[in-house]
């Protein structure tokens, strides 16, 4: 922002006082500032990157010559599994979404924080705890060792009796909580906190990418959670989801895993696309070519990515008529990727590109994306896929995509936004040298893998005999990996040195196009002294708008310095809605995450009751963090409140979870010779249908409570909520009695039918129990009268029950279908 006058500076100083957090270690432990949390994500994910990188170097050193004995087969299995798990779950996603998304998203849309700052802190601490949970296994010699995809039956108790796979299953469920919470937060932030004037068509492409990624996470992680929960139940309880002898099917694991796994590729690479679309216009000195098409391509890749999962399973033996659905989608998904590629290239060719360090990394990304993308198209052809399956050709393909195409833009982004975060410039010469080293190292490491793969070298083998012609190519790959490591170390050295000794950068050294460059470097705790005016997707290039900001600051318009507030706008057109009182720093997110870490630890050790106690502690911490209410008057909004949207997105995750459970039920049923399996009688129809009718009817008093709350009729709202609570509690009580009664006839360990039957119903009952917990909390709060915060809570919890009612219909239809 241009220089403020006296009045503007006074207002900025007032904002600084309002938004200040604690200093020192305590400040970092309790922070809810998106920038500080972004930095915490950055350093934590880089620490995991270091660990994953060392693992990769050990693997490559083992393969440098035939019959090498540096690593034992067991150590090799653990290291390649940990390398994959680390790079995917603990490095790329936390860096791209946690660090870049957290730091930049609010700045780019002109907001002062994310929609749910404490949820953001919780996400970070859960991520740290989950990472440590997984890594504790390594020094214990019990690290996951069945690959990052953890195929059954290898991962079943029979073939993996140690705790290795338990660390994997519980670890990925744990880290999934963090990722999902972040995605919910980002979606609501993009929907609701854009600066006034930033309608959808004026939103930066980076934000479109983050929105696409967040939606992909919301729908992709539940299948993985279900898959891992099934496996853990198979291992700990003796269920039969993946056990053929018990009526299960190991291919179910592959379906569930890859429904997550392929969208995961786009979850990893879309932030890279977003970074590329930020850097290219800045250094090409022109607006992005085909802006709407690039925005749609980012969303389209994420959407079609959900329909291609079985192309990872073409060698499984699926019927061709099933595989053809996935082959068609896999071929068409190339088109949105190509749209972006041509848009980037055309922008560069028609602009005046300055090949500074950030742009060089993006050019490297484009080169590697083309290489990895072309080999990806080859896998859509089923005959080729079956020939190259499980060879190093696949390793080459996905490393060009996941490292070359996903990580190169992240490093370009580190250089690009380094001046914004630190207020200092990096060394350009060292930056270019680091790029060329890393570029050469990447090409040298991964390109020969195509050839050695076509020569037949299989993946995941700890050594190979000397007479197969693979040795020379493996030497090249290993040399390349060390060159790559040198390039990355040079990046670290450059940025570390520049952080201390680099020259001052000023606010906008690259003449960037998006709003983060309007903030000071580093940005103040409140981000913007005045909420920016926006009339295009390139607001920093609209000089009149920036001049208007200065006039607004002087006049006190859109400054919002009377409290800890940020503006909320309408979802589609970005019109002013209200000023939101934002939560401040708090120790409760950390406490809740710590309690959750203990839950997973005791699940691992088999102390289920103790785990339940700590789950209660996590719930208590969540109640405590909501003790202070936002100071808002009862208002008439133009749009739905943040809390409602947060609940809506959370429920989308829930719907995906139940979709995965019901899909698993259908799959097991369709692949089973008899259903219900064994001598189990079909379930009764009358009682489940009657109970579900009661639950569905409970939405009527919920709706009445919602209407009463919005009309500020406290007693009526309380009365209707109590009626709904009684119906819901009665439903659950009878269901639990019925559940326990049925356990006397058959159990989850009887066969796969029993496993999926009790799991589906158990998940549904847990869903209802969670809703009852929310209702109890709401009734207590409402007893103290109605506030704006409590009206929003009524609306959000009412929405929860509407969706529970809808899900109950699908669950009961599935439950009684054999009858």
């Amino acid at each position, binding site marked *: 922002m241009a220089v403020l006058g006296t009045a503007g500076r006074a207002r900025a100083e007032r904002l600084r006082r309002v938004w200040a957090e604690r200093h020192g270690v305590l400040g970092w432990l309790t922070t809810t500032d998106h920038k500080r949390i972004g930095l915490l994500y950055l350093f934590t994910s880089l620490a995991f990157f270091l660990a994953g990188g060392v693992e990769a170097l050990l693997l490559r050193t083992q393969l440098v010559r035939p019959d090498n004995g540096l690593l034992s087969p067991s150590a090799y299995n653990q290291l390649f599994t940990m390398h994959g798990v680390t790079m995917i779950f603990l490095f790329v996603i936390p860096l791209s979404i946690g660090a870049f998304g957290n730091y930049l998203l609010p700045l780019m849309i002109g907001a002062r924080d994310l929609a749910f700052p404490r949820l953001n802190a919780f996400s970070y601490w859960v991520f740290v705890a989950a990472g440590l949970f997984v890594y504790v296994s390594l020094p214990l010699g019990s690290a996951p060792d069945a690959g990052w995809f953890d195929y059954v039956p290898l991962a079943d108790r029979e073939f993996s009796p140690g705790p290795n796979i338990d660390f994997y299953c519980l670890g990925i469920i744990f880290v999934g909580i963090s990722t999902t919470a972040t995605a919910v937060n980002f979606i609501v932030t993009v929907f609701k906190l854009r600066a006034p004037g930033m309608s959808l*068509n004026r939103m930066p492409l980076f934000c479109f990418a983050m929105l696409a990624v967040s939606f992909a996470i919301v729908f992709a992680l539940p299948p993985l959670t279900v898959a891992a929960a099934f496996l853990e139940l198979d291992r700990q309880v003796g269920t039969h989801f993946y056990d053929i002898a018990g009526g299960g099917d190991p291919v179910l694991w592959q379906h569930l895993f890859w429904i997550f796994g392929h969208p995961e590729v786009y979850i990893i690479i879309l932030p890279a696309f977003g970074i590329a679309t930020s850097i290219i216009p800045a250094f090409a000195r022109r607006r992005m070519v085909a802006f*709407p*098409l690039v925005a*749609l391509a980012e969303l389209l890749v994420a959407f079609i990515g959900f329909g291609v999962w079985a192309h990872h399973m073409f060698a499984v033996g699926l019927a061709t008529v099933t595989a*053809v659905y996935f082959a068609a989608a896999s071929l068409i998904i190339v088109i949105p990727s190509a749209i972006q590629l041509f848009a980037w290239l055309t922008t560069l060719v028609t602009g005046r590109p300055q090949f500074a360090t950030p742009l060089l990394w993006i050019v490297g990304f484009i080169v590697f994306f083309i290489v990895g993308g072309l080999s990806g198209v080859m896998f859509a052809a089923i005959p080729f896929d079956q020939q190259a399956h499980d060879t190093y050709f696949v390793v080459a393909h996905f490393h060009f995509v996941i490292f070359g195409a996903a990580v190169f833009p992240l490093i370009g982004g580190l250089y690009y936004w380094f001046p914004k975060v630190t207020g200092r410039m990096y060394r350009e010469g060292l930056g270019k040298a680091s790029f060329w080293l890393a570029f050469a190292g990447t090409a040298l490491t991964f390109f020969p893998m195509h050839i050695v793969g076509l020569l037949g070298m299989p993946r995941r083998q700890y050594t190979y005999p000397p007479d197969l012609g693979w040795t020379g190519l493996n030497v090249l790959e290993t040399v390349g990996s060390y060159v790559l490591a040198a390039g990355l170390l040079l990046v670290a050295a450059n940025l570390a040195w520049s952080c201390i000794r680099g020259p001052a950068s000023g606010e906008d050294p690259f003449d960037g196009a998006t709003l983060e460059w309007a903030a000071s470097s580093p940005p103040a705790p409140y981000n913007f002294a005045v909420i920016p005016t926006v009339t295009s997707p390139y607001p920093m290039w609209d000089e009149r708008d920036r001049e208007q900001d200065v006039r607004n600051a002087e006049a006190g318009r859109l400054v919002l310095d009377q409290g800890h507030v940020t503006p909320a706008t309408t979802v589609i057109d970005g019109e002013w809605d209200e000023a939101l009182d934002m939560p401040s720093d708090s120790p409760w997110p950390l406490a809740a995450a710590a309690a959750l870490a203990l839950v997973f630890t005791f699940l691992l050790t088999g102390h289920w009751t103790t785990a339940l106690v700590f789950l209660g502690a996590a719930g208590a911490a969540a109640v405590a963090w909501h003790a202070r209410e936002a100071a808002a008057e009862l208002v008439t909004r133009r749009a739905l409140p943040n809390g409602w949207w947060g609940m809506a997105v959370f429920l989308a995750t829930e719907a995906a979870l139940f979709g995965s459970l019901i899909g698993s039920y259908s799959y097991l049923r*369709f*692949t089973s010779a008899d259903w219900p399996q064994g001598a189990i009688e079909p379930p009764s129809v009358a009682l489940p249908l009657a109970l579900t009718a009661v639950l569905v009817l409970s939405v009527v008093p919920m709706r009445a409570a919602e209407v009463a709350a919005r009309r500020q009729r406290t007693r009526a709202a309380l009365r209707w909520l109590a009626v709904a609570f009684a119906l819901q509690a009665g439903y659950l009580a009878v269901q639990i009695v019925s559940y326990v009664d049925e356990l006397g006839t058959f159990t989850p360990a009887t066969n796969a039918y029993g496993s999926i039957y009790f799991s589906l119903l158990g998940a549904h009952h847990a869903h209802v129990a969670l809703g009852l917990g929310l209702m109890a909390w709401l009734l207590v709060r409402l007893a103290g009268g109605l506030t704006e915060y409590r009206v929003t809570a009524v609306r959000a919890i009412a929405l929860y029950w509407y969706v529970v009612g809808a899900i109950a219909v699908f669950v009961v239809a599935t439950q009684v279908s054999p009858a």
Partner: protein
Amino acid sequence: MRRADALMWFGLFGAPFAWAAQHVAGVMLTIAACHDNAVGPDWRPDVDAVTAVVTAVAALVAALALLSAVAAWRSARDADDSDPPPAGRIHFLGIVGLTISPLFLAIILMSGLGTISLPGCVQS
């Protein structure tokens, strides 16, 4: 603008949802048909016939979505991508709709015609 808004939203979401429905139905149908399942002793789904119907309906929805997107875009053709809403937004999302609808129509036809033209229940 209310009519243009409706056309814009249908043009944006019609084809993706048609494809998603066809995809889920087709995959479940072929899995059910190609296993020794117990849906019922007399339940032998005619994969080709069901696929043809599902594909035709999905293709029709996608084609209508394409026409809707074209109509929405035409209603705001004088606007620019970054113009204020609703005209700028309708123009922007109209372009998105008329670009994605043919892509989804292509996937729907490729999947449906591929399934019908291939022999049933042969392992790939």
